């Protein structure tokens, strides 16, 4: 039992922090207009790449830095705490790349990994469909072999960044007669291929992040099949040997709580100081306790991995708890802010830059995305506790 990071890990944390101070202005969200924010994100990814920090968790032979699990955790923690914009690199670095590393041919590795590592390409993830959400294995998009190609028809949804992406990791059905988990294949798809249409799906925050993607007779070369045909489901759900702690949520929440603490201590606010209100102190105290629990549940995943164990339901515990904790934090923050809580960013009266209004909406999505809270509870019950399905 030891809750201290090693001196090397602490030094690495300092290194990441000073780099961020240099390359990411503290108030970058203020300075960068909404129109410029995509370009800012792309530029930031290039800076990260120059440092090897797009894929620091990858093995060295593939352009990574081979960080230890605890270093990976520290890295993610610092990035999230400092609100670094990582949208450009996430799917490539954490999904496409690691899966290619494990299942890709030499040619696929050569073609894709260096470009992901250098942040030259952006990836999106074509998994979910209108009728394959929580029941992802029910996906119906078809890929039919035709000569040297597969011909893809169907529809994807919730595809973050599809309108920016160069490539997609795609799950499509290649054997409609097999049991549903056993007829799915994993493809790497060039988004410029004819027949792909991307349609925006605006979220309730007014962001354009999601899309619907339509496939109409899209020809995907057979060499872009990843791994074996019909093994896609198992590849997509394979445990990869990278940190899976959901630490980002806890770290981002910590920063928000610090903002909130700063607010309640602010003596220049009109009226009574919020901190003197016992209800406010209740919210703060509870938020701080829950935050520490979330952090520890994330650390526990890495602690298991660092002992060479493979976390299963423990990763679900961390995801479930940290997203729900983040949502509760948003509600607590809004309760503390009162009427001001409803104001959006860039509203002249907004407090804390409208962050809690954003967090409230965002976290309402996060307890759904990436496996809903209910699905996580099912996983914990069935995989973790061995409860029967029926």
């Amino acid at each position: 039992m030891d809750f201290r990071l090693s001196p090397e890990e602490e030094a690495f944390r300092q290194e990441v922090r000073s780099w961020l101070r240099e390359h990411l202005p503290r108030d970058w969200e203020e300075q960068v207009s909404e129109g410029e924010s995509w370009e800012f994100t792309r530029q930031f990814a290039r800076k990260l790449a120059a440092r090897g920090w797009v894929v620091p968790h990858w093995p060295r032979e593939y352009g990574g830095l081979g960080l230890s699990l605890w270093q990976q955790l520290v890295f993610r923690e610092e990035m999230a705490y400092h609100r670094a914009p990582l949208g450009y690199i996430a799917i490539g670095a954490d999904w496409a790349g690691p899966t290619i590393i494990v299942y890709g041919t030499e040619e696929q590795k050569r073609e894709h990994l260096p470009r992901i590592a250098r942040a030259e390409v952006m990836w999106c993830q074509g998994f979910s469909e209108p009728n394959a959400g929580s029941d992802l294995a029910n996906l119906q998009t078809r890929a039919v072999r035709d000569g040297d190609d597969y011909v893809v028809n169907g529809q994807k949804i919730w595809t973050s960044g599809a309108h920016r992406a160069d490539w997609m990791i795609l799950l499509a059905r290649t054997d409609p007669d097999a049991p549903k988990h056993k007829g799915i294949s994993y493809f790497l798809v060039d988004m410029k291929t004819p027949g792909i249409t991307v349609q925006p799906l605006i979220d309730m925050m007014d962001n354009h992040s999601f899309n619907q993607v339509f496939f109409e007779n899209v020809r995907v070369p057979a060499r872009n099949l990843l791994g074996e045909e019909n093994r896609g489901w198992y590849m997509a759900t394979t445990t990869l040997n990278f940190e899976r702690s959901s630490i980002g949520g806890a770290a981002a929440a910590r920063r928000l709580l610090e903002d909130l603490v700063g607010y309640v201590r602010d003596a220049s606010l009109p009226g009574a100081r919020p901190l003197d209100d016992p209800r406010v102190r209740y919210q703060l105290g509870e938020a701080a306790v829950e935050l520490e629990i979330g952090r520890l549940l994330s650390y526990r995943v890495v602690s298991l991995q660092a002992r060479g164990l493979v976390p299963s339901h423990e990763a679900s515990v961390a995801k479930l708890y940290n997203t729900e904790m983040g949502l509760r934090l948003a509600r607590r923050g809004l309760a503390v802010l009162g009427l001001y809580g409803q104001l959006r960013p860039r509203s002249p009266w907004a407090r804390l830059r409208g962050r809690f209004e954003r967090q409230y909406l965002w976290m309402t999505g996060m307890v759904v995305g990436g496996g809903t809270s209910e699905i996580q509870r099912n996983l914990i019950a069935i995989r973790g506790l061995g409860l029967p399905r029926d």
Partner: protein
Amino acid sequence: MDLGLDEQQEMLRNFARDFLEKECPEQLVRQMEEDEKGYSPDLWRKMAEQGWMGLIIPEQYGGAGMRITDLAVLLEEFGRFLVPGPFIPTVVLGAYPIMLAGSEEQKQRFLPRVAAGELIMTMALTEPSAKWDADGVQMEARQEGNEWVLNGTKLFVQDAHVTDYMVVAARTGKGASPEEGITLFLVDSRSPGIKFELLRTIASDKQCEVTFENVRVPGENVLGEVGKGWPVVHRTKLLAAVAACSYLVGLAQQDFDITLNYAKERVQFGRPIGSFQAIQHKLADAVIDVDGCRFITYKAAWSLQENEPDAELMVSMAKAWCSEASRRVVAHGQQIHGGIGFTKDYKIQLYFRRQKWMELMWGDADYHRELVAQKLAI
């Protein structure tokens, strides 16, 4: 960083689990609820033989010189088996303040006997005001020659009636703040003028009302400095809160394990009730609560042990969390068991009632949440 037990702690845990499974069966737990003393001298002696009373007492005083995290690991098993008796009072509330503030002579006099299992102790801190803070200490001690004379009432004193000595907090002067002017006394529990009255509690544990009527305490039995007892109490409270959390970790884990097993075996509508999502999701939430209890308790114990700057914050976080999370766990335990859980014969109620006891001891969630907020923002 590593959130798990080290090898020695694993050994301690495994040994304690095997030992208590054999020596502290449910039947004994039930007997001790009815027993006036509330503990088994036989089990007490056997635990002493394992060196548990001296676990955190330095080797030079006959202890094992182990650390706070080790004690937490052991107490987790105590919670799992609901070990009855004055172990926490003796080790945490009696020996620990002597380790913190005792003179060499006092350490020599008390600690080896505690370690040997020959001395049972507790701390008499709370009064009818039922406050954990220094202003709750109103009992007076006045000096007469080389002696002190104690008058007043202490309430919620754990296992006082079976103790040999009590650490008594009393007011010897008025200072600028309530924390000043409190003195600790090592009081022979058989001194004339002391009366014990057992309280009837939800957990059927043995808390006492202790009345002091002109109880005379020799000057050499002042623990620490006159008027400066509160910091010792404060530090002891931190360890006591960690001890309560550790006990709750084991209690919640065991309640959960029993409940999980029941959910797999109990059949209704032709299927195990654990196959219903209504039950599964309760159990999934309980997993998080138990895990949270364990890791925040480990962190609090470790922070206290290492004298980390945020140790007090961690202890308050731990007690705030464990108090409520363990309550959620045992509430799910009752609900999932249905009617059988409400019967005295079935074991789950033993956990349910004791959870409330430990939830309240050394500050409940409201109390510690307020401390967290204060430490955070003020």
